[in-house]
């Protein structure tokens, strides 16, 4: 088992239109695309929303990482297909898969292109308390560290005969303990260490802080936000008036 797919959520410094956008604009983007995906259960509108993500992925030079994030969903996709086809319909299963792909892709683009430090700065500029903004950016920064640690734990347990792929639901649940307990313990220990390291550097000693770097909502950020808002408004209008929309929009698989 590899946790390589978690790298699909790790910030990678690049020079692209998406990377250069303000993190707030990208946060709005991830939220609006997720809301739009939640508005529909029909295949065609969801495919259209999904397709509208492709130019952004291309503009951000993120194809490889994005494919990894989708690859990481393969087990979940399988469960969704089995459960939904069995209890509901194949059409609904496909809709749910596209919906999840949209949400994961949107947040993957956000995490891949937003520097955690810029994210903290943008939250502070949105009047969030500094401690909260810093903790959040620290949490994002630690995602790849935790992934590496989880891989080490899997390796250490496998080295003493631990077998991950055991059959049966109870065995599968039991199997998680040797991985989760060390991971939780190591994470708690690291959290304490980081807290002590921060306190030893006088974290939070001054209420008012100044910042070496500042971020600014530029013209291109406003244009991008305008596009996002119009995207959301169109999605809401289509949803409300779905009954009077062309028939092909509500097409579904008949099995």
């Amino acid at each position, binding site marked *: 088992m590899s946790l*390589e797919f978690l790298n699909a959520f790790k910030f990678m410094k690049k020079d692209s239109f998406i990377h250069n956008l303000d993190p707030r604009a990208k946060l709005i983007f991830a939220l609006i695309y997720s809301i739009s995906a939640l508005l529909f259960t029909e295949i065609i509108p969801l495919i259209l929303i999904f397709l509208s993500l492709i130019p952004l992925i291309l503009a951000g030079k993120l194809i490889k990482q994005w494919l990894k994030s989708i690859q990481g969903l393969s087990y979940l996709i399988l469960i969704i297909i089995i459960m939904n086809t069995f209890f509901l319909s194949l059409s609904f299963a496909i809709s749910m898969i596209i919906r999840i792909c949209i949400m994961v892709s949107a947040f993957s683009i956000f995490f891949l292109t937003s520097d955690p430090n810029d994210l903290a700065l943008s939250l502070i500029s949105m009047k969030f308390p500094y401690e909260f903004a810093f903790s959040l950016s620290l949490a994002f920064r630690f995602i790849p560290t935790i992934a590496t640690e989880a891989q080490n*734990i899997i390796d*250490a347990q*496998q*080295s*003493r*005969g*631990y077998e991950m792929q055991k059959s049966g639901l109870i065995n599968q649940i039991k199997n998680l303990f*040797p991985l989760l307990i060390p991971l939780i313990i*190591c994470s708690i220990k690291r959290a304490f260490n980081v807290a002590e390291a921060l306190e030893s550097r006088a974290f939070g000693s001054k209420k008012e802080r100044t910042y070496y770097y500042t971020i600014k909502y530029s013209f291109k950020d406003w244009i991008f936000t305008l596009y996002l808002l119009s995207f959301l408004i169109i999605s809401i209008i289509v949803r409300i008036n779905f009954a009077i929309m062309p028939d092909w929009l509500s097409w579904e698989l008949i099995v």
Partner: protein
Amino acid sequence: MKDIEKQLPLILIDNVDFTYPNGTKALRNINLKIDNKELIGIMGKNGAGKTTLIRTLNGLIRPTNGAIYLYGENIASKSIATLSKKVGVIFQNPLHQLFSNSVKDEIEFSLKSFEFTKEEIQNKTNEILKEFNLEKYRNRSPLNLSGGEAKKLALASIICRDPDIIVFDEPTLGQDGREIEFLINLIKNKRKKGKTIIIVTHNIEFANEHIPRTILMADGLILADGPTEKVLGNQILVEKASLILPQTHQLNLALKKSGIQCPNDLFSKDKLINFIRDFIKNKTSEIVEGND
């Protein structure tokens, strides 16, 4: 062990390369032959490929190119579970593997993948707790042990599986003098019982004193492989691997620099002590004779 297995090299690493998915080449053209009952040290700077190399031995990492043979058999198709019965890898951080409610359960977990009866598991657990002086912590949570004891427990949980090859990743890291002494005795005992031991370490003094064969690595390549005193005595190679010469070698160089004639193989602690003792004795008698 079958007779034919005894004749073959225990481990044969043939032209092994490994590249991580992010493109980092961790191992390049590695060729190694390790015989039965050997004690080998693998040294080199961080990122040299030491840990990657030992992870290939029990199948945690599969080479991108080349093959690894264990008792003459290619391990490519063997599962980690099968290989871990023959190759026990002890990782650096004990917290990565401790999760049970008690020290006893932790050992029993390692034994459950074998086809032992309940009684056999209990007996083996008792034996190993005694061997590692962990009996008094039997019912204690592994998470309440000190760093050194946790490392001992992690070690015990691999040793109890009685693997033919024991691989240590930085065993002396964070260990006090007594714990290192315990480790040295353990290694000696295991070698007497015919085990092959591979140790990845940055501790040059430990390697110089206790390990007869050293493999020096840098940038995924093997820089040198041979008797420890020769490998660690080569200043150019040692510097290339971001290490510093062992103290005995440094003293040897200092003696030569100050014009004292000393033998070329003066690298072990015992040899050095004897030489200095004889040197002082001779000098003292020379002075006494001069005064007379």
